[in-house]
């Protein structure tokens, strides 16, 4: 897996910010959009920290699905 560089991170921020701007840009001022971009930067930073961790396939999400029956 290629290392994720700072340049890649900036590109990811721009792509994800574009998605958010596309969805909500019409209701936000330029200053608010700047605030959104800052938040997206934090999200990408956190995501990259998560992606950098290696796990075993057996490391399941700690939120197991529980089947349901109304009479049990």
């Amino acid at each position, binding site marked *: 897996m290629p290392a994720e560089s700072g340049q890649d991170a900036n590109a990811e921020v721009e792509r994800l910010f574009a998605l958010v701007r596309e969805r909500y840009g019409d209701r936000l001022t330029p200053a608010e959009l700047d605030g*959104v971009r800052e938040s997206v930067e934090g999200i990408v930073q*956190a*995501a990259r*920290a998560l992606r950098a961790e290696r*796990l075993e396939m057996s490391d399941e999400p700690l939120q197991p699905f529980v089947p349901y029956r109304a009479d049990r």
Partner: protein
Amino acid sequence: MSENPAFLPVRRLALLVRSRTVSPVTLAETFLERLETLGPKYNAVVTVTRERAMEQARRAEREIAAGRYRGPLHGIPYGAKDLLATSGGIPTTWGAAPLREQRFDFDATVIRKLEEAGAVLCAKLAMVELAGGMGYRQPNASFTGPGINPWNPDAWSGGSSSGSGSAVAAGLVPFAIGSETWGSILSPAGFCGVAGLRPSYGRVSRRGAMALCWTLDKLGPLCLTADDCGLVLEAIAGADPADPTTSDRPWSYDGADVAGRRFRFGVIKNVTTGCEEAVSASFERSLETLRVLGGIEEVELPELPWEAITRTILHVEAASAFEDFIESGKIAGLTAPEDHYSPYARDAILAKDYVKALRLRGVMVREADRVLSRFDALVGPGRATVAPGLDQEFRSAIRGGAPDLMGAIGNGAGLPAVCVPNGFVTRGLPTSLQFMGRVYEENAVLAAARAWQSLTDWHLRHPAVGND
């Protein structure tokens, strides 16, 4: 009664009530008046529930006179964070201007349990709008105004359980209920110099509480002492069929004398990194006192993105819980300008990254339990700073602007922690110490905090309020 009840702990008030030295009606009237006259000074109150309080107080008085004493909360006034549903036409605003007329036709389980214990609901207390889940950056983030600190009117009371912290500190109620997703009990307790207990996840039913993050939300007490936190937790803890996340492990408060008990404390390496100098200094002094109580060992945690794990889960769950509110644009009606746009950014969190956070949470809980199994508690500063100024933007681990290792692990892994004052420093503001324990070990952290308070007098100091 010759003692001023305003700053008496629940344990002491209970003795006075049980012995009929003071009547629940008199107590209710005293605290209702304080809430009405002093509450606005701290922006601490949303609704004073006078009618319900007097009805409950009169009932308590009749029952106690008839010999039907229910326990240590019988006849004791309290306030509830305004995210707990209350019946009878009392608003439940979640601190948010667009919801200031919101009402429910039932009581949250916690409110019901406190009623069964005989406690007297005197007020719905102010809070940061939507429990801070929209990303606020400064104290003015509630339609009731910024929470004002009783120790310094230019400082914030903390959040998101702002009124729960300031009301207890100012003697407006003997105890209060708050909630914590990440920091919302420990922050106001620490900034206001009172005791705050974040119970284990699942210890207290959240039925009827505003949902911010289903896998992170906890309800717990704020009181004058750690001992009082135990008394209140015993009344509100327990399984609830209406909240399937509650634990069916029975729990009762062990308030036994801790004199002579030896504790094992752990301190996470570099736990004061990012703390204000005054906070670090208070903590170092506290370690000297803690050595009287037992051994202290430095522990090292594996390198993991602890804050990123909990933050990612929080952001995704909050965005989903408030999907309609956010998508509809109602967030534009919130008080904090940054709450008008911050939640939109969470659409940028990818599903694969969220699931990775959930998988890493499994590593987190195992590592936390491995470390904590050797100790009664990990100790650290309750907050990294003293209370910021009312007009000051603050750093937050939830936004990624500050480290909060114990907060990230404690909330991500659902661990109990109690926060108590450990000094007064800059601008007359308190600093705090937290004891964080293994899951379901509230009695261990409370015992440690009681032992701490038996050796210190920070919790006996109270701000100058009114004519006290």
